[in-house]
């Protein structure tokens, strides 16, 4: 099963070395991405979603550093590659889309040239061939009048178009995995739907797997095949999307789903999870969620739970939950 994964993140730990101490931003995260599937990572701000992505891309910057674990891309461990090897992997086998389409394109170059740069970096093609490929990918990501847009500067395009350019840039070398870090947060809802549909389509056509980082449960339900719920640098629950929405097992996931406003229910106030994300410098001794958990028991405050199997009878894939309630299902990680 594990060999088939196109991207296998095993027990990844990334720490930030700050003046106040070591901050475990990513604390033993394991994520498996099957080929051609969309894997969602959800969680509130500061839970380590983006840091996981940055670690995988090797983009973590001082004072952050990957301190443990392995990142296996296509059967090859890319955790400890040199800078040169890494720049051959980035963009070619794994690529990334960022949150802000406004600032993620260089303002001084026409967008076509920027996408072309990605091709020229990784493939031995002439400039003209590269240009043709750019126009093709512009067509594929639904940019009208690619010939004309090729020479447009980023500020002449709308947010949606810019994000399409970014997707084109990320997809042009047909990577195995594309990480999308909140790709639709800065866009309005109509465009969001278009972009998500586009990503799903490309994913199916080209067999690219996508890691979709978001804090929008609706987006997850819409496009993802698998979901990882993160909290304070740890994966709290992982399951196939349908199973997660049908049987949210971790108290945190339950809270998250409960706090989504529903059209068919009348409520005076929205449900909220009390409290805030704990300071990563001073995490509780036991489960990192124990301070906010409404089902917490004494044991939760002193012992750290592992990821336990919480599979229901009708679920086919494994359903991991980091909560003592499911201890009887057996341990999934070490």
């Amino acid at each position, binding site marked *: 099963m594990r060999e088939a994964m196109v991207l296998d993140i095993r027990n990844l730990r990334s720490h930030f070395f700050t003046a106040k101490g070591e901050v475990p931003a990513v604390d033993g995260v394991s994520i498996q991405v099957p080929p051609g599937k969309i894997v969602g990572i959800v969680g509130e701000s500061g839970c380590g979603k983006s840091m996981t992505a940055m670690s995988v891309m090797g983009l973590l910057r001082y004072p952050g550093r990957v301190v443990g674990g392995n990142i296996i891309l296509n059967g090859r461990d890319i955790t400890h590659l040199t800078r040169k090897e*890494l720049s051959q992997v980035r963009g070619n086998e794994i690529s990334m889309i*960022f949150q802000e389409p406004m600032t993620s394109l260089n303002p*001084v170059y026409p967008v076509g040239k920027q996408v072309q740069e990605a091709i020229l970096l990784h493939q031995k093609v002439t400039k003209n061939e590269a240009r043709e490929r750019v126009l093709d990918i512009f067509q594929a990501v639904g940019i009208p009048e690619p010939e004309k847009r090729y020479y447009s500067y980023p500020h002449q395009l709308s947010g949606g178009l810019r994000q399409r350019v970014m997707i084109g840039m990320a997809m042009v070398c047909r990577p195995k995995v594309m990480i999308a870090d909140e790709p639709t947060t800065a866009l309005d809802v109509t465009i969001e739907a278009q972009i998500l549909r586009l990503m799903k389509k490309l994913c199916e056509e080209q067999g690219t797997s996508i890691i979709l980082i978001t804090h929008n449960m609706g987006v997850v339900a819409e496009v993802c095949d698998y979901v990882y719920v993160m909290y304070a640098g740890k994966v709290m629950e992982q399951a196939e999307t349908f199973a997660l929405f049908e049987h949210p097992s971790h108290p945190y996931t339950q809270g998250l789903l409960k706090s989504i406003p529903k059209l068919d229910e009348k409520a005076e106030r929205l449900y909220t999870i009390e409290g805030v994300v704990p300071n990563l410098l001073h995490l509780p001794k036991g489960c990192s969620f124990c301070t906010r958990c409404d089902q917490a028991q004494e044991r939760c405050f002193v012992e750290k739970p592992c990821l336990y199997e919480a599979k229901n009878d009708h679920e086919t894939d494994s359903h991991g939950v980091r909560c003592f309630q499911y201890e009887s299902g057996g341990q999934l990680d070490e």
Partner: protein
Amino acid sequence: MTDERARLTGKSREKKKEATAVGVGGMARAGMPDREETSAQLGESDTWADKLRTLMRQNKMAAFSALVIVLMLLAAVYAPLVAPYDHLAQSLTDRLQDPSMAHWLGTDELGRDVLSRIIFGARISLTVGLVPTLISMTIGTILGLCAGFYGGKTDFIIMRLADVMLAFPSLLLAMVVMYTMGGGLINIFIALSLVNWAGTARIVRSQTLSLKEKEFVEAARSIGVKKWTIMFRHILPNCLPSLIVLFTLNIPSAILSEASLSFLGIGAQPPSASWGLMVVRGKKYLFSEPWLSIAPSVAIMIVVLAFNFLGDGLRDVLDPYLKEQ
């Protein structure tokens, strides 16, 4: 002086706004002045040529200054054709003549035609304005980029070096260099280049610091672009607007420095004509034949003002472009 410039700048800004309003009104898109200004400048195709055209249309002062600079450069290049006399030909019988039809700006103490000497002097003064500025800005840009991009120790070493350079009065430093290496044009280049890089380095560093945090740099890294390519292909072009403006502001200060050095007797050596040298030679006759000093001073003033106005104009054109991001 500063007040005067601020006033002039303000004036040129107002003029520019008027020009825009008129131009845009003609296109029947009134209502949102700010947006129009940017869209007029950044419309469908904003190439460098278009920006230049905008500059010419919006800021008449800058356009005029550009014309003056071009004329001066042409005069300097074709000095033997333009100048009425040989700038070195002495004629002791014609010494210290008042301005006349024969000698428009009179003659100096050796009977040389002052106008011809100013035209030939433009060669030295403009070269001294352009070459050391280019060299010092190239050095400053590279060092500033490295400091900003790499940070840490590299940053510390380069910027402390820059602080040391800035702590000395630059003229004094240039004098030290000139005294140790002797006079002459090449040494002026070296002295001024060594002295002036620090300012550029500071500006480029601060811009790099903010630019390297931008997501497009992260995006470039995420598609596998290498560090040096990021520095020179992705960050540097974003600094260009400020560098161009800085360039036009640095030229006059280099010309003035050369004038000061020549005035102090360690710049251009006689009999070659440099504006600074002419001012100092005319000093003796300031009361009887003031044009000997005034004429080259006015030449310096015109060049300095022209470059300043051009710099202001360029900044006005390039600034909204920066704001757009």
